[in-house]
Structures are given as C-alpha cells and as structure tokens.
C-alpha cells in the first residue's frame, strides 16, 4: 500500500449562500495512518468538514487543506486521490459489481491484468468473492456497502473518507460491518476520516474522535479521553448518559452537599455541578450510602437495568444496576459515588446551553 499521509486543515471555515456559517474557522490535523472520527448531531459541520477534505467543497477564503506537505486546497476531488464511501452507497446502477469496483482502476489506465488482480484483491478484502457478475439492484444493503468499500480501496487512495456509511443499515448488520471496517482500516493503514452521529461507531473505530457542535470542534481526543474527561456538558451528554448533580453547599470539612446526601471530592472543590456516569454509581446498603433516594422507575435493558432514582434533585439520577435484581418503585436505595468517578467539565454548563440555543 502507498505510504499514508497526514491531513492538515488550517483555518478552514465554510459559509453557505445566505450567510449561514456551517463551519467556524477550524484547525485540525489527522495524523498519517490514523482514523479520525467526526462525531456530532446533524448540522454540526461534520459532513462539511469531510467534504472540504475530499475537495467536494472549498473552504472560505483563507482556509488551507494539506495532504502531507502538499497544499491541495485548489485541487478538485478527482485529483486528490481520495476514496469515498457514502451513506446511500452511490453505486453505479448500470454496472455490475465487478465493473463498479474496477471503475477507478480503469480510469487510472492500468493494464487489464492489473485491473483484474486489484479488483479481485479488493473483493476478497470485503468478502465479496463470487459476486462479481451480480447486478447492483440484486444486492442487500450490507453487500452494497461492501461493494462501495471495495470500490474505494481498490484505487489505493491516500485518504479514505466515510460519510455515515452504516447509517442506512439495520443494527445487527451495522455492528458486523463496523467491526469489518475497523479491521480493514488497521490492515490498510490508510489515513481515514469517518463521519458519524453514532457514538458506539465513533468509539469502536476512532483512534481519535472530534466531537463537533454548532460548526466547532467541542473536543478532540482519544475515545477514553472523550468519555472519561469530557470537555463540556455537551460532550458529556452526547457521549453516553451522564448525571448532573448540583452542589448545594460546601461544608467546612470539605464535603460537598448535594440532593440526597454528601460527596467527598477534594479535586472538585468550588464546582457548582458534579457529573458522573450511570455505570460508575454503585448500589450499596443504606448505612454505607453517600446518597439516599427512592427508585421511581426501572428500565430493563437485558444485560443491565437502568434505575431512575429520586434523591431530591430536579432530575432523577440514572443508575445502572445488575439486571436480575428487582427494584419495585418506591424502594429506598443507597448509592455510593467514589471520588475518582466524579468529574466536572472545564466549561460551565450555562454558557454552552445559551450557545446551543443561539445556533438553534
């Protein structure tokens, strides 16, 4: 495979006709061979970022796109040497599976022998042997996306770009194909940018994740960093579920009073809000509890169950509990929150919320 290149975006913004700024000025570096996931809700600018990298869209004046050391800002997509996989597959309906996969190779004017060889290699990599003569409309959604994947990797692009490739598939198939794409990306070692709104996909595939919000990168980091040290309330809430406890008062002994009890969190002194993940809260006997409350609802999820506990705050706490135990509504429950699972995002929640509202 061709040695991988890094992607550097410098001051790339994108304003659409009508003045809407889909992307605020953005600096982003994707390391060579890395898979970077752009994650965020719809309208956050992740697809625009991908299209600027691909060359389908240009950044506003002043923005620069580099592949390695090379400035590709003014190059159209057909000269950028990228492979792209789309949400709706975008396969050529008038060509067979084999012709779809060989299309890019034919454009490169390779010898017939080499075309056949590389086409078959790509088909083998996505497990499509024997499907060459099939018509596109005779394939299932999962098979179609494999063809699209094979078509993109057959040309051995410098950069692989994925635009929500699994969004149109059902859950089971999505999981399987996600694992296969992950294996393929590791095998190829090609620099990849992967756009999704699905946090599981992002966690599973990304070497790093850029969580985007309202045209900006809210946080850029490894999946572990994003999950355990979210930069703000938006990230914390977008990735997984999170509980937010308001601090009512700080006691003279350093304990933080919250609804339903007290927490000891020396590293969070002065915080007005404390966050923790549902799975980090332990259910303990009442006499050992940091916080006491009442179960108001239990939702059975199979592997676990999600309990909603009213501890006196405005929003019930979410807790993950083993699935076999029964928690009738109204049961008193004791919760332990070790200090090392408590965190608070760097930025105060209130400003984030107003920003979100302003960007509607």
């Amino acid at each position, binding site marked *: 495979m061709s040695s991988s290149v890094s992607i550097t975006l410098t001051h790339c913004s994108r304003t659409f006709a009508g003045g809407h700024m889909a992307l605020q000025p953005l600096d982003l570096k994707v390391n060579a061979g890395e898979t970077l996931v752009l994650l965020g809700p719809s309208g956050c600018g992740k697809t625009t970022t991908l299209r600027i990298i691909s060359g*389908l869209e240009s950044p506003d004046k002043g923005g620069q796109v580099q592949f390695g050391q090379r400035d590709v800002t003014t190059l159209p997509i057909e000269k950028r040497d990228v492979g792209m996989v*789309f949400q709706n597959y*975008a396969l050529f309906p*008038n060509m067979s599976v084999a012709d779809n996969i060989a299309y*890019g190779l034919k*454009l490169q004017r390779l010898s017939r022998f080499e075309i056949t060889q590389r086409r078959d290699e790509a088909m083998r990599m996505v497990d499509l042997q024997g499907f060459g003569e099939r018509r596109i409309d005779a394939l299932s959604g999962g098979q179609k996306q494999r063809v699209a994947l094979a078509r993109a990797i057959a*040309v051995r692009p410098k950069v692989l770009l994925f635009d929500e490739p699994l969004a149109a598939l059902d859950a089971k198939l999505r999981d399987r194909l996600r694992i296969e794409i992950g294996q393929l990306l590791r095998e190829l070692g090609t620099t990849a940018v992967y756009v999704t709104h699905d946090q599981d996909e992002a966690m599973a595939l990304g070497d790093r994740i850029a969580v985007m919000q309202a045209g900006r990168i809210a946080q850029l980091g490894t999946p572990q960093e994003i999950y355990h040290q979210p930069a703000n309330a938006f990230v914390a809430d977008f990735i997984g579920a999170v509980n937010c406890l308001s601090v009512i008062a700080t006691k003279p002994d350093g304990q933080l009073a919250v609804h339903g009890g007290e927490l000891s969190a020396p590293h969070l002194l002065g915080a007005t809000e404390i966050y923790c993940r549902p799975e980090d809260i332990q259910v303990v006997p009442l006499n050992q509890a940091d916080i006491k409350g009442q179960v108001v609802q239990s939702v059975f999820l199979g592997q676990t169950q999600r309990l909603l506990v009213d501890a006196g705050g405005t929003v019930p706490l979410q807790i993950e509990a083993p699935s076999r135990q029964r928690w009738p509504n109204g049961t008193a429950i004791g919760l332990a929150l070790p200090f090392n699972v408590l965190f608070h995002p760097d930025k105060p929640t209130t400003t984030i919320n107003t920003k979100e509202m302003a960007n509607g």
Partner: protein
Amino acid sequence: MKAASKQPLGAASFSTRWMVLTVPVRHKSLVAVLALMPALIVFCAFWLLPFSRLILMGAEADRSSGVSAYLTILTHRQYLISIVTTVGISLVVSLTAVAIAGFVGFFLARQHFWGKAVLVAILTFPLAFPGVVVGFLVIMLGGRQGALAQSSLWLFGERWMFAYSLAGLFIGYLYFSIPRVITTVMAACDNLDKSLEEAARSLGANTWQVTKDVIVPGIAPALLSTGAICFATSMGAFGTAFTLGTRLNILPLNIYGEFTNYANFAMAAALSVVLGAITWIALSIARRLAGGNLGASA
C-alpha cells in the same frame, strides 16, 4: 422461532382471504361489469369499431391499382418513399431534439442564475402553439417573404427560402419537439443522485467521464421516452406540414390527399394503419428499453 410463528399466521390470513373471496366473488364481478359497462360501451363505439373498420377498409381494393391498398403501398414507389421520408425526418428530428435539448436541459437543471425561470418559460412556450402557427412561424422565417429571403435579397439579390421543403418541415418539427425534451430532461436531472457523480469523481473521473458513465446512463430512460414521444408527434404532425405546402410527400399529407382529393378511402385507411403501426412500435420499443434501464437503477 420467528419463522415458526410466521407460518400459521400466513396460513390463517390466506385462508380467510380465500373465504372472503369465494362467497361474494360472483356478486362482486357482476357489480364490476355493471360499473364498467359505460366505459366498455364508449370503448367499443369510439375505439374498437372505427379502428377495426379502418383496418378492414385498408384491405379493400385501391381505386387506381384495383388491388388491396396494403399491397398497393408495398408495390408503389410513391407510397414507399412517403413512408421512408416520414420515418426519416421524424427520426432525424427526434435525434436532433434530444441532442440539443439534452444539453440545454441538463445545463438548466444544474445552473442557477438570474432570470432562469423566465428563460425556461420562454423555451417551453412553443408547446402552447398549434402546428398551424408553427408552420406560419417557419414561413415567416424561411418563406418567400420571410426574414431570410428579405436579407438575402438585400445582400445578394436573390431570395433564399427553405420553408416549403423538408428543411422547413425539419425546423418546424424541431421547434415543437425541443420544449418537450427540455422539460423532461430537466425533471430527470433533478432526480439524479448527486452522490453518484461525487463517487465517480472521487475515483478520478473528469467531467467528460462523469457525463459518459453516470449522467447519460442516469437520464437515458428519460431521453429514450421523450425521444420516442418526439418521433410519434413528428410522424403524425399535420398542421405544420399542411401550412408549409401540400407538395411535401409525407404520410399525414398523403392520407389527407387520398381522402379528400381522390376519395380513395381504402388507401387513406391503409396509410393510416401503417402510420399508426410504425408509431406504436417505436413507442413500445422505447418503453421497453427505458423500462429495462429504470429497473437497473432502482
């Protein structure tokens, strides 16, 4: 588990449907026949009867040759030339219209510019004109007193004309064919999946290759069907041809001539059937081809 539970469910719904259908089926079909009766009567009276009469009449003896009119067509040069000319000019008109309007329609569908709506309205305006008016316009352009004749007289001292020949007919037919193709192509381009073009470009295809490999196959069904409609319209267009002159040897004028000038009903009927058959075959071929392509893109 799922499959097992599905089986009795499917069987149950099948048996109930069967029961519902068996008892009142006769009753239902009787109602249907009664309800369809007016339509059937209209169909027989105004379609089946005149049509079968027309086909049979074509088999009767021709007034001049004395043998069946169908046979006369096959054995007389004049009629064969007429058929070939009509098919030829219709074919050339359709191809030209599809070629010109295909490009224009694609351009209009993709480009956004000030005054586009007005331009599209102007381009599709000829659809509002009957053939007679189109013929009149061609005469004003290329007739004895037309714009071309006036300017060539002033420049070179002689009148240049094309209105009363096949060239005039060609221009006239083109005039009312192009708007049809433009509107169809514009609609087809709006329905094209843009990501197909983006995928082709990401694989290194330049504008020409994208056009050849993605856009043309994508709008081919629309081009085919609109081309066939142009062909059918040109085959039977009478108003324009009649305005331009009765000396033109094309089928619609021949049918009119046999019918009114010579009272040769058998020949008029036979020529009508030939014209109808050719048009119908062209339309059904186009439909089949376009249908096959549509199936592939779904």
